[in-house]
């Protein structure tokens, strides 16, 4: 950390920022009144309720809200240019802004899928800024791009650089966006939820990278996150936002130890901590702050198998050359087997890009697996024709990792949530309407949002729409792919409780894919750990969490950050292991997965997983 003596001018100062949006229900205030400053070499973490205006504030700082229909209705955004002159960004010309954006201020966007241009290779998108601001040649920029990808821990960057965004996993995309923001070594880095899609090991490495950057180049970081553990690890100062206002600001220790505002208190109280469930065999709902008389009972589930997956294998072709021929395969899921019991939750954790989402999608046959058997309630999903498959989806739903991409941009939210019911005719008319309203209430979205369109929401709000949609049908199985990662901890707690409540009441089963180990610990009956397309360890949560056997599981557990600013992990605790790639030549023949039983309901992969 650079020595920030008081005299150093802040690099950016937000004063009484106010941003409004025009919607058809009249103007909506995105940010009401926010002021704070960011000093050189400092990390300011912005936390707060989902939808409180964090992203909008950061977009305002880039003067990008205008392109999304917003308007900076008031306030000043003072930016300190390198030459020491101050500039009010709120009134700067777009031409001038162009020389600042990407160059002096870098931004990591919240939703990486939609933030990337689908028709350009990631290499192309990465090198663009370099060519522009750093005056590099195409070739140099490409070389630098490979380097950047390596820095953000993407395996086989030379190959990935030629891939298109849709061919990457959620976490990889996010890392591409990070690399893009870091490319020109900006003086101010705005990171909007940069690690939600990353597993804890990679998250730790990314955080370390940002930390190093800060130290070495004096980059100031505005870090928006919901993960209080990350805040504890990263922040110098914390700004807490609530409903479009800043409610509290202070050094990180102060916020954690002596929160002032009620909301901050609630927030901290809701933070799930790893190890809270130690000793408890069954998951139970979280204690909610400020709610009295909450019943907290463990959820036993049943031991009837609902979903049984055997030897699932899914591969994607890698195209190359002008004629775009298949040159290799991505072995996204390789010989994976697991069972999910009725009324229980199986969590999948693992490194980013190891095939979790693909597993989830394969189970619903949203991607066609190469091999394997999938039995849902003894129905052979693999054997179904299109019509029966559709019927079968009445029983299984998915919450997509990237909620924005999974919502139709032209449909009102209420319609999107009602759509599953319309599809299957489960409810009609008034009843359907009521259920939609109920779902909105349950995921903590105001009913006034029902008429909005996806782009008018914050990241967390969109995610809740996606959750509501998945719940609409009362399915038997929900594949929840990073379903709660974009939510602030208090809403997260409510949504997690909602899911568990439904599980208890209706016997829902979840395939819960998450990077947040604390949440996983809280919700799961059983846990599978994936690495490079295979499940390396699977068993009851208690067994896996309290007695991890596989080296990767151990490393994972060790990397989990702790929500306590006094217990920061230092960089040397991390072991940067080179990450093997799942891309293999066409003639590659993988070995089958063989497991060793190490305890009752606890299996460890003995086949070489690459770790």
């Amino acid at each position, binding site marked *: 950390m650079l020595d920030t003596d008081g005299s150093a001018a802040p690099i950016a100062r937000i004063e009484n920022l106010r941003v409004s949006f*025009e*919607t*058809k*229900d009249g103007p*909506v205030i995105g940010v009401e009144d926010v002021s704070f400053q960011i000093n050189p070499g400092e990390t300011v973490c912005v936390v707060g309720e989902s939808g409180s205006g964090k992203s909008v504030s950061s977009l305002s700082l880039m003067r990008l809200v205008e392109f999304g*229909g917003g308007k900076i209705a008031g306030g000043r955004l003072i930016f300190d240019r390198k030459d020491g002159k101050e500039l009010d960004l709120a009134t700067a010309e777009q031409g001038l802004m162009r020389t600042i954006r990407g160059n002096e201020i870098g931004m990591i966007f919240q939703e990486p*899928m939609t933030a990337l241009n689908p028709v350009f290779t990631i290499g192309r998108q990465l090198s663009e800024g370099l060519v522009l601001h750093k005056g590099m040649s195409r070739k140099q920029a490409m070389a630098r791009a490979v380097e950047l990808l390596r820095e953000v821990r993407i395996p086989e960057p030379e190959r990935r650089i030629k891939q298109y965004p*849709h061919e990457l996993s959620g976490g990889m995309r996010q890392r591409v966006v990070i690399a893009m923001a870091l490319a020109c070594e900006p003086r101010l880095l705005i990171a909007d939820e940069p690690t939600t899609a990353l597993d804890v090991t990679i998250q730790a490495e990314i955080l370390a990278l940002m930390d190093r950057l800060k130290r070495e180049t004096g980059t100031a970081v505005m870090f928006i996150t919901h993960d209080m553990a990350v805040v504890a690890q990263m922040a110098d100062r914390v700004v807490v936002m609530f409903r479009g206002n800043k409610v509290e600001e202070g050094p990180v220790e102060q916020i954690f130890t002596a929160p002032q505002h009620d909301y901050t208190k609630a927030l901290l109280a809701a933070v799930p901590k790893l190890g809270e469930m130690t000793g408890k065999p069954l998951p139970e709902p979280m204690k909610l702050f400020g709610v009295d008389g909450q019943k907290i009972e463990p959820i036993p589930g049943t031991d009837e198998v609902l979903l049984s997956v055997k030897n699932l294998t899914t591969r994607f072709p890698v195209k190359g050359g002008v004629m775009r021929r298949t040159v290799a395969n991505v072995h996204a899921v390789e010989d994976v087997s697991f069972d999910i019991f009725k009324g229980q939750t199986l969590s999948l954790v693992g490194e980013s890009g190891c095939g979790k989402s693909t597993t989830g*999608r394969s189970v*619903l046959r*949203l991607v066609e697996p190469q091999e394997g058997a999938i039995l849902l309630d003894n129905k052979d999903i693999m054997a179904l024709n*299109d019509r029966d498959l*559709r*019927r079968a*989806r*009445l029983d299984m*739903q*998915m919450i*997509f990792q*990237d909620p924005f*991409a*999974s*919502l*139709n*941009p*032209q*449909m*009102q939210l*209420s*319609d999107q949530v009602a*759509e*599953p019911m*319309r*599809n*299957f005719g489960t409810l009609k008319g008034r009843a359907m*309407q009521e259920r*939609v309203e109920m779902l909105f209430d349950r995921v903590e979205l*105001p*009913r*006034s949002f*029902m*008429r909005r*369109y996806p*782009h*008018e929401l914050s990241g967390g709000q969109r995610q809740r729409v*996606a959750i509501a*949609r*998945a719940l*609409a*049908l009362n399915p038997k199985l929900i594949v929840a792919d990073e379903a709660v990662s974009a939510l602030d901890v208090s809403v997260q707690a409510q949504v997690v409780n909602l899911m568990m409540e439904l599980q208890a009441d209706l016997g829902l089963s979840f395939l819960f894919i998450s990077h947040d180990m604390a949440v996983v610990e809280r919700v799961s009956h059983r846990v599978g750990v994936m690495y490079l397309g295979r499940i390396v360890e699977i068993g009851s949560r208690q067994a896996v969490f309290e007695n991890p056997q596989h080296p990767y599981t151990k490393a994972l557990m060790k990397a989990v950050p702790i929500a306590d600013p006094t217990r920061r992990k230092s960089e040397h605790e991390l072991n940067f292991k080179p990450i093997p790639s799942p891309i293999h030549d066409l003639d590659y023949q993988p070995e089958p997965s063989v497991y060793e039983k190490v305890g009752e309901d606890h299996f460890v992969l003995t086949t070489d997983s690459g770790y």
Partner: protein
Amino acid sequence: MPSTPPRSQWHEVWTQFRQHKGAMMGGIVFLVIVLGVVLGPWLWPLDPAGIDFRARNDGPSLAHPFGTDQLGRDMLARMIDGGRVSLSVGITAMLLALVLGTLVGVLAGYFKRLDNALMRLTDLFLALPLLPLLLVMVLLFREPLAKAFGIETGIFILMVTAIGITSWMPTARIVRGDVLALKEREFVLAARSIGTTNTLMIARHILPNVISPIVVSATLGIANAIITESALSFLGLGFPPDFPTWGRLLFDAVDYMQQNPERVVMPGIAISLTVLSVNYLGDGLRDALDPRIRGR
């Protein structure tokens, strides 16, 4: 914040549409044109076929605001009369082509199995020489249709079908191209995961997202249909020669461009105005369907 209950999406689109200045202007102009040609005979009771040899090739005057033609017929009355045919043929044929084109395009783009067959069919239709095709259609169907529906309706059906089935192909290809890209979007996958049937998928998720090229096709299609109608009439495939239509009035007037410029200008303006107003209506619809564009 007031929580107005959500209304149907189409209601929503309609509200949005009504706020669109261009669309409203276009709508008004279009309505005026339609009303003009429908109510015109009452407002301007001159007989469009009334020949007056003393008043041949007159310029605009009070008695004949748009002048007269080479037989001394009142051009305004002929414009009104012709507008009915041009508009109804133009709009119906355009709709037919649009529906056909969109249907083929969406089916081909969405269902991989149908793609090849439908696109080869499109290629075939594109390759067919228009004139012989029309001649054959007329040969085979004019008399039966005239018998079944009466001469005018019969010919109307024939013309509309002829224009429709010979102009859907570009729309089909364009729509297909867009659908190919669209169906790989994640929200389509998401919609499939919530059990959206193919039909609903097309209706709810695909069609609203390919509306822009369809709208453009519609505007271009209407102009195309109006002109094609007159071309067909010259070949003797269309309406009887004493049926004025805008395209035909325009064609007839080209030779008189130097002495009676108003005779080319008027039908030209009528066609252009119609197309422009439909274009703005289309723009409005497009914008209304795009939730990101608002307030303009």
